[in-house]
């Protein structure tokens, strides 16, 4: 078990292997590939929130000099409704097609209608204005509350609510309902001394990756087509694209470029199938790059929600019942992260009685995509705010009330499994003992604490390790590296092989090189791909031992692997990895280790954050003055990049809490599709973010690893929300806590 093991490589703050290319500008991202003869694709997008396309005439555009091809929905081979796994969670093929190019009806501002490929970007842009489109504007609906009403305008007349006791006969904007229950909720509330209930609103937010979606493709009628794109999962880009265009997987090679941020938003396809159609029709390689406005209007943001939570507690702080009703916007097509919202909302607590009901609702906004712990921040924000209010009413310290109820080993979760060893209590204690928590606050300052939970996932990963004749290794993995995971893979391989990390070069290979790899998401990569790396390394060691055994004429069982060296336990002799590899040609050829796994046993990661906020009482403006993010990593393979995940998640959550939101006009047009008015945090907005790593090993991973990428965005909403509430003396129920909202609340506050 990991506690007992002394590590030589993992836990070191090594220089990341891909770093040199990234600090010199040599690393190639989605928009950085150009091919000979390449032309440029551009998309015509809906200016309306909801409309029927009554006319779509491309003939004038087609004749424009320099235009090479035009793609519309009709260019897809016939697709029908069919659920399939690609990216994060299930996708409906028909919805996917209709989202990429509208089928007779546009469902949100920015919805793609058709695409043009031309000799230059400017010509393509110019030709877009020659497309003759006429619309019949339909009533739109922009909020779950309105969309769930009986008489709401319907987005789809073929959408019937799933998950009701009886199959409904009328279509609805409610795509699905689910419920989870445990114990006796009525009894639980009857036993409570104090009950707090509130409804919270969280806005549509965007992942805000700095790199826009981009791809360069080349369609080959007879050979293999190629897609180069920035994605979190090139194998799933291949799966979706091949399915949409009815291609064999082996005839489509997808190359993952370096990726300039994803956070869940690059787990689906937008441009790739369209550009392949344009390439097929023009016979030329095609490059498509979204501009920033397109990214905001037409990629997949995170769900807005209206979540109601009710919690009962005894005077001593023991929770007796927890109830929630969670309504998530899916955007224009079904599939919000309502499910994970329901499953995570109360998981930080060991609670006997709970009931959660969730709704997945379509509205006239872009189809949501995953965003870091999809669904969890919105739900847990509501729960954690209510818990802080209960703690305040009962006069109990917010960390103490959480310690009293914290989920621990053996806790029966609402969604299914009993928890194995988890680190929530350790995180709470680390925060309680921190200098930050003990520090005094000044006037107009407030502090907030919140916990957060995310499951993490495992899934399929395929890795090969090729040993080179000089004893160095090339580690071939298929998980796009969004935050430094190649460094983790390198360290884990070094640890297992016991050869120096800098002798191992990790690369992310394309879809032709490896068997299927799941998308980088769900905080799975260091855990699952890491396990495949360990398995591949063990495969290498097994073969190295066999080669040494053959040299010594002993059995492989008589050979030990110590410090990167084969040791003959049945006699004399040591052979280093370098010596074995150098002689591999004489012992049976070169050595390749393989690890193809479907990893189970992802360990959940809990976090606790502390936020201190100062408020300007005259303007309602807030400032984060101190912040601590504490989280269980199981085992931090590369502590710097673990801290980086905590800090980055915390800051995305701070942005969500304070300033970020999609602002729509009355007509349903997005009014802030740019970084000027979609206000993500700046360097000057923030203090240093103290990162505390707690390590409670995950029993299912050889090194004890838990995914760390996502949990960090869960606690900030309530930590910041509570800190603002305390600093300003207001009740917080709506995000973002922008200055006008805070000022208004202060002016009408009775708190």
């Amino acid at each position: 078990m990991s506690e007992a093991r002394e590590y030589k490589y993992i836990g070191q703050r090594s220089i990341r292997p891909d770093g040199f290319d990234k600090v010199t500008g040599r690393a190639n991202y989605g928009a950085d590939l150009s091919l000979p003869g390449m032309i440029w694709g551009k998309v015509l997008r809906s200016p309306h929130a909801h409309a029927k396309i009554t006319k779509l005439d491309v003939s004038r555009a087609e004749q424009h000099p320099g235009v090479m091809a035009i793609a519309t929905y009709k260019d897809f081979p016939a697709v029908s409704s069919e659920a399939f796994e690609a990216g994060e969670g299930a996708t409906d093929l028909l919805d996917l097609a209709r989202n990429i190019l509208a089928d007779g009806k546009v469902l949100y501002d920015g919805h793609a209608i058709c695409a043009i490929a031309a000799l230059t970007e400017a010509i393509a842009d110019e030709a877009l204005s020659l497309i003759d489109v006429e619309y019949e504007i339909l009533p739109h609906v922009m909020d779950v509350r309105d969309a769930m009403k009986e008489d709401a305008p319907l987005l789809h007349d073929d959408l019937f609510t799933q998950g009701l006791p009886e199959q409904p006969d009328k279509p609805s904007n409610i795509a699905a309902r689910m419920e989870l229950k445990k114990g006796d909720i009525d009894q639980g509330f009857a036993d409570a001394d104090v009950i707090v209930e509130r409804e919270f609103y969280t806005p549509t937010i965007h992942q805000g990756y700095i790199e826009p979606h981009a791809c360069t493709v080349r369609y080959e009628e007879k050979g293999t087509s190629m897609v180069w794109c920035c994605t979190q999962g090139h194998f799933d880009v291949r799966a979706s694209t091949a399915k949409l265009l009815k291609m064999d997987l082996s005839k489509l090679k997808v190359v993952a470029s370096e990726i300039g941020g994803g956070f869940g938003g690059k787990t689906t396809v937008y441009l790739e199938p369209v550009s392949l159609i344009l390439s097929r029709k023009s016979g030329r390689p095609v490059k498509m790059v979204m501009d920033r406005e397109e990214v905001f209007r037409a990629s997949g943001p995170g769900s807005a929600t209206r979540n109601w939570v009710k919690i009962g507690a005894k005077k001593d702080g023991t929770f007796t019942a927890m109830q929630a009703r969670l309504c998530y916007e899916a955007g224009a097509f079904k599939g919000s992260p309502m499910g994970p919202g329901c499953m995570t909302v109360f998981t930080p607590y060991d609670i006997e009685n709970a009931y959660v009901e969730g709704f997945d609702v379509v509205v006239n906004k872009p189809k949501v995509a995953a965003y870091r712990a999809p669904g969890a921040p919105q739900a847990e924000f509501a729960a954690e705010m209510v818990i802080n209010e209960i703690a305040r009413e009962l006069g109990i310290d917010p960390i103490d009330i959480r310690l009293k109820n914290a989920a621990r080993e053996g806790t029966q979760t609402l969604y299914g499994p009993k928890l194995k060893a988890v680190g929530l209590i350790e995180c709470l204690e680390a925060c309680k003992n921190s200098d930050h928590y003990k520090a005094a606050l000044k006037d107009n300052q407030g502090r907030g604490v919140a916990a957060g939970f995310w499951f993490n996932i495992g899934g399929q990963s395929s890795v090969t390790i090729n040993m080179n004749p000089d004893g160095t290794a090339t580690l071939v993995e298929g998980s796009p590296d969004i935050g430094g995971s190649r460094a983790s893979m390198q360290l884990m391989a070094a640890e297992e092989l016991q050869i120096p990390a800098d002798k191992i070069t990790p690369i992310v290979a394309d879809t032709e090189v490896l068997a299927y790899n799941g998308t980088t998401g769900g905080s799975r990569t260091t855990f699952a791909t890491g396990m495949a790396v360990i398995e591949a390394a063990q495969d290498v060691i097994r073969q190295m031992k066999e080669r040494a055994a053959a040299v010594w004429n002993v059995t492989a069982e008589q050979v030990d692997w110590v410090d990167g060296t084969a040791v003959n336990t049945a006699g004399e002799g040591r052979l280093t990895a370098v010596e074995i590899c150098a002689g591999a040609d004489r012992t049976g050829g070169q050595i390749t280790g393989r690890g193809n796994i479907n990893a189970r046993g992802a360990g959940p990661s809990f976090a606790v954050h502390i936020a201190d906020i100062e408020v300007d009482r005259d303007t309602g403006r807030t400032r984060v003055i101190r912040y601590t993010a504490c989280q269980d990593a199981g085992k931090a393979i590369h502590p710097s990049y673990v801290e980086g995940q905590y800090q980055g998640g915390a800051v995305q959550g701070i942005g969500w809490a304070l300033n970020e939101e999609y602002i729509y006009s009355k007509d349903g047009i997005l009014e802030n599709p740019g970084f000027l008015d979609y206000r993500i945090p700046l360097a000057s907005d923030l203090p240093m973010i103290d990162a505390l790593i707690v390590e409670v090993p995950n029993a299912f991973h050889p090194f004890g690893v838990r995914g760390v990428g996502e949990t960090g965005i869960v606690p900030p909403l309530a930590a910041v929300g509570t800190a603002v509430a305390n600093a300003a003396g207001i009740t917080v129920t709506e995000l973002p806590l922008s200055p006008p909202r805070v000022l208004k609340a202060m002016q009408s506050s009775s708190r």
Partner: protein
Amino acid sequence: MAVVEYKAPKTIDEAVGFLANSIHPAKAMAGGTDLIIQNRGHYDQPLVVVDTKHIDSMMQATVDADGLVLGPSISCAELTARDDIKAIYPGLIEAAFLIGSTQIQGRASIGGNLCNASPAGDTLPALIVNAAQCVIAGPDGERTVPVEEFCIGVGKNCMARAELLVALKVPRPAPGTADAYLRFIPRSEMDIAVAGAGVSVTLDKNGKCTAARVAIGAVAPTPLLVPEAGDALIGTEIDDAALDAAAAAASAAAKPITDRRGTEEYRKHVVGVLTKRAAKIAAERARGAS
């Protein structure tokens, strides 16, 4: 519009000639930080850009006994590094310093800020309280317009076709005078002003305010000079009561809209807060100076 031709004249006459004689619509460009964004795409609408940064006089700033003569195309980065200007017009320089990021500062200019005629332009209230004059050249010669009359609507200035803003003349303030500018934005940087307030005050030896100008931004279609707010300060020692009165006058003069950057109600309130705070800073500076 899309740029189809780029001209880099070396003299004002040459520039005016390009603006007057071009077959396509022509616009003068200084730093381009607004113009390039506004004219992206729309390839069917041609535009000629006349870069004013190669005209020496438009890239110089001189301070003498009469005051400041400012070449309108000097970058904010260059201008804000000028301690001689900052010593006299600290509020104007802090307004220039607030425009955009370091990168934007490297290009953006006061002339561009003014000609763009955004109600939220940060340097506009600061120029107004300093009673700046705009020198405009055109095919028929030069004319001078007080800066508070330069903007006539959202994105509209008073210049006719082929006219060019060639200088800003800022008079030297009377002894005991100082200015300040503050704006409100949700983040700490990078945002467009939700509201802005510039104040200039003149104090006599006893600390009594003898003259004051208050101008506010982002709360009406154009930046506004608010004489009532200035009057509220004149004759006082700029005490709390006077500051509150000036703030109330500024809020009353504001006619803002609700948009993605703020609500009408919020802007009216905050412009008062800013007026009060800026007046306080200006008064402190004036006390230090006199």
